């Protein structure tokens, strides 16, 4: 396990490289952060997509989220059992939170005091109190838990098990699973629709999206399939999702099918399939929703999508196995 001291030493070495002075505003730098699962670093691009920094992290950085005021970026590092904290202004690792084994995907509680993280190799969902750094709950899940999302009131956490093909519904007050919802094969990620009514689950191997009614925790309607022209259903391995604030469009990465589907939030029909790189993985919208950026895990690059025209505008090499993209708009 990497200690905090080692991390800080590593950060200091990287920080020694001369950088242009940058104004210290809390948010809105326009910078783009990409975690590299096999590169053990987070690459930072500016709003012109020029690379400005490669930040060494603990091993196997994957999921990332900003803190409440967007001054820090948290990065789950699966092979060092830690969530590193990057200062968004100095672009250095400044701290690290010790987690259970193999953290993969995480989410903050609405008050940002608790981190809910899936421990992929020990099949549990863990809650960590951010201030004390104490692990305050470990909830057993099916094997290989992945996607984690916390309800707006902080009372419910949803987590997928990739092996058991389930969504576990966790009641925070009791720390217990109150419902298991069987979905498609290898469920990966979640989004809430902006109206708060639905939970969408991407199921990578059965190529489908399940929609769960949050009031009842029941599946609504048939699962959705999105197969770009010229592909077989088996080529489609959906993972990452992002939704516009008005709920009108949902972006879905189709994995091996090398496309992102833009889905109408009301009719659930496809508006457009956009060609991106190989194994399209996570997708993030910029805060002003002018662009979306997709990480392409097998072609080691990211693709920028212009949201007005729904056209891919640039592909930028970033390094080995890009996992998650976060845009500080």
């Amino acid at each position, binding site marked *: 396990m990497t200690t905090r001291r080692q991390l800080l030493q590593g950060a200091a070495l990287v920080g020694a490289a001369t950088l242009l002075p940058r104004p210290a505003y809390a948010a809105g730098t326009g910078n783009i952060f990409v975690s590299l699962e096999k590169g053990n670093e987070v690459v930072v691009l500016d709003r012109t997509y020029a690379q400005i920094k490669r930040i060494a992290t603990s091993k196997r950085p994957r999921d990332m989220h900003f803190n409440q005021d967007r001054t820090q970026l948290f990065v789950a590092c699966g092979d060092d059992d830690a969530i590193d904290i990057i200062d968004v202004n100095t672009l250095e690792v400044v701290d690290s939170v010790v987690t259970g084994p193999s953290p993969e995907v995480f989410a903050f509680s609405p008050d940002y005091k608790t981190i809910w993280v899936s421990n992929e190799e020990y099949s549990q969902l863990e809650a960590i109190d951010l201030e004390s750094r104490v692990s305050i709950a470990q909830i057993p899940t099916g*094997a290989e838990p992945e996607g984690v999302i916390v309800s707006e009131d902080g009372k419910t956490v949803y987590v997928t098990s990739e092996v*058991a093909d389930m969504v576990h519904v966790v009641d925070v007050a009791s720390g217990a699973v109150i419902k*298991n919802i069987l979905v498609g094969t290898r469920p990966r990620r979640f989004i809430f629709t902006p109206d708060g009514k639905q939970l969408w689950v991407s199921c990578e191997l059965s190529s489908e999206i399940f929609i769960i009614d949050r009031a009842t925790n029941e*599946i609504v309607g*048939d699962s959705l399939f999105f197969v770009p022209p010229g592909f077989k259903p088996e080529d489609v391995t959906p993972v990452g999702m992002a939704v516009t604030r008005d709920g009108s469009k949902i972006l879905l990465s189709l994995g091996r099918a090398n496309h992102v589907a833009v889905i109408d939030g009301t009719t659930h029909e496809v508006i457009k399939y956009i060609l991106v790189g190989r194994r399209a993985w996570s997708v993030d919208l910029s805060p002003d929703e002018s662009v979306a950026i997709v990480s392409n895990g097998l072609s080691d690059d990211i693709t920028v999508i212009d949201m007005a025209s729904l056209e891919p505008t640039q592909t930028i090499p970033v390094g080995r196995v890009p996992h998650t993209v976060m845009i500080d708009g």
Partner: protein
Amino acid sequence: MARLAPWLMGAALSLLPVAAIAQDAPRDVRIGYLSLDYDARYDEKLVYLGLVLDPLTPPVPGARMGVEDLKILADAAGFSATLDEQKAADVAGLVARVQEMAAAGERFIIVDLPADVLDQVAAATRDLKVTLLNTTAHEDFLRERCYPNLLHTAASDRQLADALVQLLRVRNWTNVLVLFGQNPRDKVLADVFTASAQRLRLNVVDTRQVTQSTDSESMEQNNTLLVTGGVDYDVIYIADTQGDYARYLPYATQLPRPVIGSTGLEAAEWNWTWERDGASQVISRFDRLTGDLHMDGPDWAAWVAAKSVMTAYGKSRKTDPDEIDAWMRGARFGVDGSKGVLMSFRPWDGQMRMPITLSTADAVIEAAPLDGFEHQVTTLDTLGTDQPEFVCK
């Protein structure tokens, strides 16, 4: 894929009082596991000064892990699962075990048996309501028997050969020297490879038998320079199930050419260095379970056999074992073996469709089907004998 969930909605994890929520007490499902008391395939190969080459180990930990991995699905679906591990000394004993297991209500038995033994056991139990899942016998003839009670999660010889041949086709290494050892099985493997190679229009420039015998009269067959000389080729394929000729062949050839087959680049169901598609988590679990054994092809085949049975009980929405069996063999079944695609059983020969890894000692170079091989139904059916060509014998 249709809705699977509604009947599971009220179910809960084992840490909750399941019985209070599920409609009935959990059903007890016993899954059989059958192997030989003594199986020569698992002898450690002692070579020279007690050197142990990475030995093949019985794959039962894979089956245990498959049951364990889906216990939570079983809890939600209202059944509890146990693996009933049995052994016997010979065919008669194995048949008696199968009969006992079937009588005790076990509908599925995972088997780890050599092909000739399994052939006899399957024949003797073909009228029982029991499905055997073959995890370690690759022989094509077992598929061509068309036993109604036999499915295969071990890859067939032809699947493995087709995977290698796809790679040669993609690399444009079209001229192949085929070598085979003295075990009768070596000639069978060389023939399967040759048939596969010819189907994809590779050119087998020559086929030669090799021997380890060191007498001077056998020099044409034991000297690696002579064995690989006198003809040009892009690549050497060797079938040598004993392995001791193949082991010394790379870097000992007349021409500087790669070696594939029983050494060099090998085709298998799985390789312990596979790291895509969630494989690294599977391999870590297996390491922890076994105290750091490498997870190899047979371990994967046993794991996915157990997962298949657990998935069928958990997702079919059936309680009648015959209906569960039919569902598992049907088009709506799909199992996740951490190879990036859903896998199912071919109705014509009971063979599981699957990607095949092509690996060196420490890396997966490719996984077949390779890009560019297309099929009207599923690209997985570009590996192995496809329905139009398949004949029961």
